[in-house]
């Protein structure tokens, strides 16, 4: 099973993006050979996160066997954020990680405001995925401070350093065993090195589809994993097996 662990589909009111209909995302997944996708908001990083999580929920409910939601919250409002995490996880049954985007949301992972959010995530068994690879608030080692403060929390680097900071993501993963790396937009040279040096059960695959759902986007990033010179077992873990285990997917 191939699981795309990083897509942003509904909404699109920012940066000249546009909303991607469920049918378009599913067609793109079919074309690329992707079975399931973890879906996150993009509008929710800027606008009312409860409303955006509702929009996300309605989106994935159109194809719940293939689309899995991961909600977002604004950690600057801890009470509302924790209540929303509980609602999304326990009432709406969202199995995806809490998706945070520090530089778009305007906070640093180092700030103490993340502590109550991390504690709630631990209690709910909810991994936290953060955008990474971008200064000034989303470098891999900044996100890694959260993993250091909460060694039982699963912290996912959403881009494994993107183009320029994959070496930092690799260092973070080696230092903190509770860090998971999502290979999504990582420099291909970096993907090779990360796969060679990090235990295979700690790697995920994502495409960022939705931040541009054009034909070929998912094929390109899926190809970056499929063409790696590693065993089929390792590829199967990166492409789906780990996601099934980490997020409890059937």
């Amino acid at each position, binding site marked *: 099973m191939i699981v795309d662990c990083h897509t942003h589909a509904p909404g699109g009111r920012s940066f000249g993006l546009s909303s991607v209909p469920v049918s378009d995302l599913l067609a793109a997944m079919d074309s690329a050979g992707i079975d399931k996708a973890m879906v996150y908001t993009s509008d929710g990083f800027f606008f009312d996160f409860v409303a955006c999580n509702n929009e996300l929920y309605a989106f994935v409910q159109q194809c719940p066997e293939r689309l899995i939601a991961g909600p977002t919250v604004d950690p600057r409002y801890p009470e509302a954020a924790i209540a929303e995490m509980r609602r999304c996880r326990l009432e709406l049954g969202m199995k995806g990680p809490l998706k945070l985007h520090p530089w778009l949301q305007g906070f640093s992972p180092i700030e103490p405001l993340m502590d109550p959010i991390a504690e709630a995530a631990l209690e709910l068994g909810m991994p936290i995925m953060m955008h990474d690879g971008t200064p000034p608030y989303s470098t891999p080692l900044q996100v890694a401070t959260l993993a250091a403060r909460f060694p039982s929390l699963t912290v996912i680097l959403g881009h494994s350093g993107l183009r320029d900071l994959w070496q930092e993501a690799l260092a973070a993963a080696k230092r903190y065993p509770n860090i998971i790396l999502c290979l999504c937009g990582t420099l291909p040279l970096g993907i090779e090195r990360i796969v060679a040096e990090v235990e295979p059960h700690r790697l995920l695959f994502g495409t960022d589809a939705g931040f541009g759902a*054009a034909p070929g986007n998912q094929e390109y990033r899926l190809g970056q994993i499929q063409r790696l010179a590693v065993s089929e077992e390792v590829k199967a873990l990166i492409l789906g097996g780990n996601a099934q285990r980490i997020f409890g997917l059937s």
Partner: protein
Amino acid sequence: MLNGKLLIDAHCHVGEGVHYRLMPDELLRQMDDLGIDRTLLVPADRYIAVDNAEGNDFLLRTVKRWPDRFGGFATVNPWYGERAVAELRRAVGLGLVGVKLHPVIQGFLLCDPLVHPVIEAAIELDVPVYLHTGTPVNALPLQLAELAQRYPEGRFIMGHMGNPDFWLDVPTALSQAPNLWAEISPCLPGMVNRIVEAGFAHRLIFGSDAPLTDLALEVMKVQYWQVSEEQRAAIMAGNLLRILAKGG
């Protein structure tokens, strides 16, 4: 040829680097398999940083051996000052066709006046200047547009088109400086579509950035661009050929 169209890779690193290695004979095999007619070579990482002449000499030997398949962009570190200018004159005099600068690896702000002597030499030699972009804080599209506006007689290539995070800046930068083109590795097809929709198909250039990328996957994306066949041919080769032409 790829689907009947000329395909030129505008940016590929060769040589024995610290972080990667790609030798010309291996690259030629890949080019033959993938339908790449010609490749513009640039040196590998450490040659960009310090051993400029060594890297340029490797390119010169490669280009001389396979002149129908390869061209080369010299690199010089602007911190070497007059020595950088002299090395650029030497390398272009011996047959290289442009200069590649990397503000991050070479350690300068893209629009620092430090780089001006190299730019002025490139203009005098009538060769284009390729600059890596997309890495904050010192290698950004608008910094390049600033430099390009200061030298309207120069021809500039925005390496990687601001990838990954500066795509919003690209149309603005291209609008500010009509003497600026964008090389698209490793951008997603959707990003190419977006810049084409903004009206800049005639300013985009195919490049791979191999071996930091997978050459086959960079070529695969060509078929996915949502552009006219005329635009596809221009991005695959035509736009680059115009920039390389003397007086272009």
